[in-house]
């Protein structure tokens, strides 16, 4: 390890190789609630170029030392946790936008740029990068690619995977490859680009991404519709979609979520209602007006008790403020909050919500149910105290049952957070044996020594 540190220092400079215990202590976590367990990395490095990342991986591969790439450390599946120690490659210094190409509707970025910063820059050019993970103020493009992140708008626009045209990736042995390119159409050989998307840093480290952009929608409008039952809210979602309307978002909040938001961030949500939908429509001004009217009618047809339609940007922001405060509100409810990420076919949402209610009551765990109803991606936010061993045991059983329920309803383990270390034990329930074998063989081809983010996915 000593000679590895010396070599890393000569490549990166002493200041960019951290080995003090206290430094490593601050890279032993990401946003995943892990309780008391401590997974210390041995070294933290902060590279500033692809060449440096290449050198780091070459050295690590020669010394058989694990390497874990890290963006903002905001993922919720433990994907940045150094379970076997090793080197954390913190990409915070590689955070530049290299190019915004208006003619080809694309941009080239370094992995450490925060998603929201990228969005702001491209929107100034009249363009749009739709993926909007809830932590996008800090979560990075590199992390979004590694976890194939989504967000509310992905119902209409698709997730990160739908916007990656090409990648520059450093492989386990330190060699650098370029996949895809600057064209939207590309069937030249296997689609390696998409293989890296969602691979959670187990196949390589992305050092540059070419991303597709779209024209920025001219205008948007937000509706907040209340329902007397989750079933009616979910049926309204199906109603909207079957009427061939594609809102940008279809967000669901249950009664307890609304009560919790009102408790900590009062915005005037109607807590006497069982469920609400936050629906955003965007596009040309005329079509937005028409669609908002149609959605209002459909919601009324499913017994919507009260519908608020934003008349200006401020009213839109107010409605979104309520929805975006949900995580913070649950965070204030108890010492720890854990967000799960099950996904089911969208017509199974009422059943899934009922299952989550049943399971959380059975194990006496506080759950606020919210999520992206449009694509069946439900995020129950559990409030608990991880210092309470007995509560943790109950919670673990509840999560087992939760994923079991999602799979039985034809859904799967993760919509947008990834598998990481927290869900790997369920993988065999979600995929067939042969698929897992194939994935493992692929991993073997890319990373024969298994140095890249070990202990994740499988």
């Amino acid at each position, binding site marked *: 390890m000593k000679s590895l540190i010396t070599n890393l220092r000569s490549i990166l400079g002493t200041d960019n190789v951290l080995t003090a*215990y206290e430094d490593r*202590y601050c890279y032993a*976590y990401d*946003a995943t*609630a892990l309780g008391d367990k401590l997974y210390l990395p041995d070294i933290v490095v902060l590279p500033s170029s692809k060449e440096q990342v290449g050198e780091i991986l070459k050295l690590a591969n020669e010394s058989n030392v694990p390497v874990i790439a890290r963006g903002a450390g905001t993922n919720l599946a433990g994907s940045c946790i150094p379970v076997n120690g090793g080197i954390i490659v913190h990409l915070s*210094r590689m*955070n530049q936008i290299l190019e915004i190409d208006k003619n080809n509707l694309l941009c080239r970025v370094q992995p450490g740029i925060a998603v929201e910063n990228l969005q702001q820059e491209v929107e100034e050019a009249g363009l749009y990068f739709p993926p909007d993970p809830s932590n996008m103020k*800090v979560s990075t493009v590199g992390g979004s690619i590694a976890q194939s992140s989504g967000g509310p708008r992905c119902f209409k626009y698709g997730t990160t995977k739908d916007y990656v045209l090409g990648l520059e990736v450093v492989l386990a042995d330190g060699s650098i490859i370029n996949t895809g390119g600057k064209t939207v159409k590309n069937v030249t050989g296997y689609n390696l680009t998409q293989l890296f998307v969602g691979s959670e840093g187990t196949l390589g480290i992305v050092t540059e991404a070419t991303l597709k952009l779209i024209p920025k929608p001219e205008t948007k409008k937000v509706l907040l519709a209340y329902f007397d039952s989750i079933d009616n809210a979910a049926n309204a979602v199906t109603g909207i979609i079957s009427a061939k309307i594609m809102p940008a978002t279809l967000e669901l909040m249950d009664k307890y979520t609304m009560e919790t938001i009102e408790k900590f961030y009062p915005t005037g949500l109607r807590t006497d209602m069982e469920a609400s939908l936050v629906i955003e429509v965007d596009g040309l001004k005329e079509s937005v007006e028409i669609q908002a009217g149609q959605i209002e009618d459909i919601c009324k047809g499913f017994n919507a008790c009260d519908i608020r339609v934003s008349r200006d940007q401020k009213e839109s922001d107010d409605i979104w403020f309520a929805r975006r405060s949900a995580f*913070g509100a649950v965070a204030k409810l108890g010492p*720890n909050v854990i967000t799960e990420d099950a996904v089911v076919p969208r017509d199974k949402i009422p059943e899934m919500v009922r299952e989550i209610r049943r399971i959380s009551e059975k194990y006496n765990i506080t759950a606020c149910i919210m999520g992206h109803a449009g694509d069946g991606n439900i995020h129950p936010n559990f409030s608990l105290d991880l210092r309470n061993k007995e509560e943790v045991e109950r919670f673990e059983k509840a999560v087992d049952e939760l994923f079991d329920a999602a799979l039985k309803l034809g859904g799967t383990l993760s919509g947008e957070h990834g598998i990481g270390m927290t869900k790997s034990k369920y993988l065999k329930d979600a995929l067939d044996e042969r698929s897992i074998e194939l994935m493992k063989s692929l991993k073997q081809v890319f990373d024969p020594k298994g140095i890249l983010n070990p202990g994740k996915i499988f």
Partner: protein
Amino acid sequence: MKQLKDYSEDIYKCTKCGLCQSVCPVFEVTGLETAVSRGKFTLLNGILTGKIKFSKNISKYLDLCLGCKACFDFCPSGINAEEIIIAARNLNFNLNGISFLKKLIITNFDSKLNLNLLKFALSIYKNSELIKLTDLIANKIHFLKQYVYVFNSQVREHIQYKKLLPSKPQSKQKIVYFPGCINNYINQSVKNSVKMVLEKNGFEVLIPDFSCCGMPARSAGDFNTFKKQAEKNLALIDDDTDFILTDCASCGSVWEYYTDILDGDLKEKAQKILPKAVNINKFLAGIDLDIPKNVKLDLNVTYHDPCHLKRFQNVYIEPREILKKIPGINLTEMKDADKCCGASGTFCIVNPDISRKISRRKAENILAAKADAVATGCPSCKIGLAQGLVQTDADKPIYQPVELLAKLYLIE
């Protein structure tokens, strides 16, 4: 005053969502997890649960906080990092003592003799040809410029005191002005302006011989010195005082903490005084301010929000209102006007490289706003603004709104 252990539940509550990274100026220029509140909470939680020792490294990371409170606005769990880090620095002070540099600063701020000597030396420097000479040298010798420019911009005075005749009927309110060390000993321009503006508007101003407000000591975790300074200052304020006015954003923030640090009768007094301690901009925005109609200043100004004014005292509309009232001033907002200037008291001395990088970004935003001058509400921010501007080779005067008002009154 709360101890670190009193915050253990708050510290544990950090969900590690990492949102603090998006607003932390220190993280922006370092990219280090240890620079941001999430990292610090993890270390402090380790200390409180007995998993790690309070080492020198940890005290170094605790110094990597500007105390700007930007992350508090943003934290989903509502954790007040500024207070917690100060409590941690206090524990560090008790366990490991204080660095030589910080001790030197606090001791000097605590000694009126030293401060008066400094004032005397500076008055010779300012009022002789010396300041012009150093300007000249700095322009010839490039590496000296960054220091000399910052130094000279701190001491050079925009406004000299002149007794102005009141344009309003004499008020019966008892007004005490708390100038703070910079205005008292280093640069009297703002103090002159406050006096002139208040007198012109019919207020008589009392200026007792106050000590340092105590913010440097509080910030370093030296609660004993802080408490002594609080006691001394409170003793100089009569019960029938109507307002204690401050223009220094840091001196204005301290009154809330006097209620924490003191006990018994003094605590009660501090609580009674707290609502009377008002920032000068807020005070002036609340009165029928005299605005001469026959003169104007012709100046494009952009305004920088001091952290201690906006996030500690919720004063950010009023300084802008005053600027807009001055005929001829055109106020242009800069990007991230409320982001820390990078100086933050002793931070710029303990972490000079990081401080300069933060200041440079501030200066770039100032330049992008295409203003002729920068206005701000704190003498300490002048350091950050100047050390940023010098890096971009721009030379822009830095004013407090009250100085521009005084300037207007002088040309009337």
